[in-house]
């Protein structure tokens, strides 16, 4: 991420200065510095349990920082709520959930309003009409038109993910926070959802912060990466960060980054949180 005047937040979507988070008396990470420009597509990488989701929750304003300063869209985190679209880490919807995809998308638009919507209100109120159009628009944008009217529990994981991206987009966010949107998708779906996210970011100038296990499906679209380790993080251009030198220094242990003949990145020797199984992660030799 290009350096600007170190004390200026202009042009920055997200900024961390020496930020630290403590949860239940344990420091999750500290000394994290981060600058994300508007419109950039940035990945948050690192092994399990290192605090990637925690970082997303700090940006959202759900978790406070113990030390340091965080600025999101020029405001303290939490004040930018309406301008942020969020897709949490999840397993799939319960197959017996009898709620349509379009209803889930619509909740992104008015789910936090109290009171009941007036039946047939869209024929009287312009705002309801606009809202309805916007829901259709984002469903088209993510290519969910053909399955948005089916119960969300019955569509595939990739289709659910598209609907949830639509839900996150429905309020015209300036910043999109995606927590492992590619996890639990098969490879073709990983590629197409990654392409979709990049397209949305580029065409609508939306800043995207995406948590990922595997950098490979997204690496060609990325403007920057944040690599997290127990304690801290490094950020910068993908080519600068995902290197043997940088990662060895970050983890204080020898790590090798290999590039396969088809351009995939493989990180060898990355420390893993012991309680998790291994082959989900980037980088472990397959």
């Amino acid at each position, binding site marked *: 991420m290009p350096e600007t005047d170190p004390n200026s937040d202009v042009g920055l979507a997200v900024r961390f200065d020496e930020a630290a988070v403590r949860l239940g008396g344990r420091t999750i990470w500290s000394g994290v510095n981060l600058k994300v420009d508007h419109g950039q597509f940035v990945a948050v990488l690192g092994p399990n349990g290192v605090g990637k989701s925690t970082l997303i929750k700090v940006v959202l304003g759900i978790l406070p920082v113990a030390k340091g300063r965080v600025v999101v869209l020029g405001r303290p985190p939490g004040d930018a709520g309406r301008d942020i679209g969020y897709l949490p880490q999840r397993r799939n919807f319960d197959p017996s959930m009898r709620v349509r995809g379009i209803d889930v998308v619509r909740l992104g638009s008015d*789910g936090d309003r109290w009171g*009941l919507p007036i039946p047939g209100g869209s024929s009287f109120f312009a705002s309801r009409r606009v809202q309805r159009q916007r829901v259709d628009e984002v469903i088209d944008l993510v290519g969910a038109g053909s399955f948005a009217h089916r119960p969300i529990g019955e569509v595939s994981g990739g289709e659910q993910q598209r609907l949830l991206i639509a839900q996150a987009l429905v309020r015209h966010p300036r910043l999109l926070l995606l927590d492992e949107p590619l996890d639990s998708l098969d490879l073709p779906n990983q590629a197409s959802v990654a392409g979709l996210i990049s397209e949305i970011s580029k065409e609508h100038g939306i800043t995207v912060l995406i948590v990922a296990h595997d950098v490979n499906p997204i690496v060609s679209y990325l403007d920057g990466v944040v690599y997290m380790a127990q304690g801290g993080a490094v950020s910068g251009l993908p080519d600068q960060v995902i290197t043997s030198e940088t990662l060895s220094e970050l983890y204080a242990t020898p790590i090798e980054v290999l590039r396969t003949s088809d351009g995939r990145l493989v990180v060898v020797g990355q420390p893993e949180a012991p309680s998790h199984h291994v082959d989900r992660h980037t980088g472990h030799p397959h």
Partner: protein
Amino acid sequence: MTMATDGFVWNLGDDVHQMFSLHFMVNAFRAGSIVAVLAGAVGWFMVLRRQSFAGHTLAVVSFPGAAAAIWLGVSATAGYFGASIVAALVIAMVPRSSSGRAHSQESAVIGTVQAFALACGALFVSLYGGFLYSLTGLLFGTFLGISNGQVLTLGLVAVGVLAVLGVLARPLFFATVDADVAAARRVPVRALSVIFLILLGCAAAEVSQITGALLVFSLLVMPAAAAQQITARPAMSLIITVILALVITWLSLGVAYFSVYPVGFYVSTFGFAMYVVAATGRLAVNRFHARLSGDAPLPHHVTVSAR
């Protein structure tokens, strides 16, 4: 039970006329209708939130509540509501997280509360001296001797609960379907869950008074489960739920009037029948669609060999 003075005479007009000439039957229909609307609306959310077990427990708890109230010579209505609301608060204190682990913890606590409540109920009934008919009424429902005052109480509580539910409806739906995103949007997920349990407690206490403590599911679960089979549109399935609950209640009261068996049996039977029809209907429709769109639906997952 021999309150049907002339019995069933195969003349619907006369039968209905005869039924409604009796004040206690009019009150039974009033109370039943109030309870049906309330149970439908609250039950719809309960089924969607997968809190049926909690709902059942809140109803079971109303049994010792009512039994204790009768034993102490207080109004049974107060016993029903008091016990259910207290139990709702107890269940609400169990931490609930989205991780799923807290769910099993919640069901363990709920199961414990439920068993203890039933035992207490049995104790209070025998302390009272075991007037057996009242025991059957408490457990399996009765529509006899509902006073004007009771109807008024049921009505006021129902209006209150429905008003609160109306205000909370959308955020509650959001928190139910998608708790993490709702929380990120500053929807007070935890507070909503506590308030909903209290509303559920009130509804369970009301339903218990008609169907009996053990058969509340017939109005709390069955109409909602059937409606959610019929349609996945939220507003539509909520409306269908309330209609089904009303139809079940009216049919049951009508039949129970000419029969010697407890009303709770009929409510459950009609509810069960509707669920079976709805579920079978949906299966048939799904099959039909699958056949229309050619052969069996393609598997969604593409297997990729190890890379």
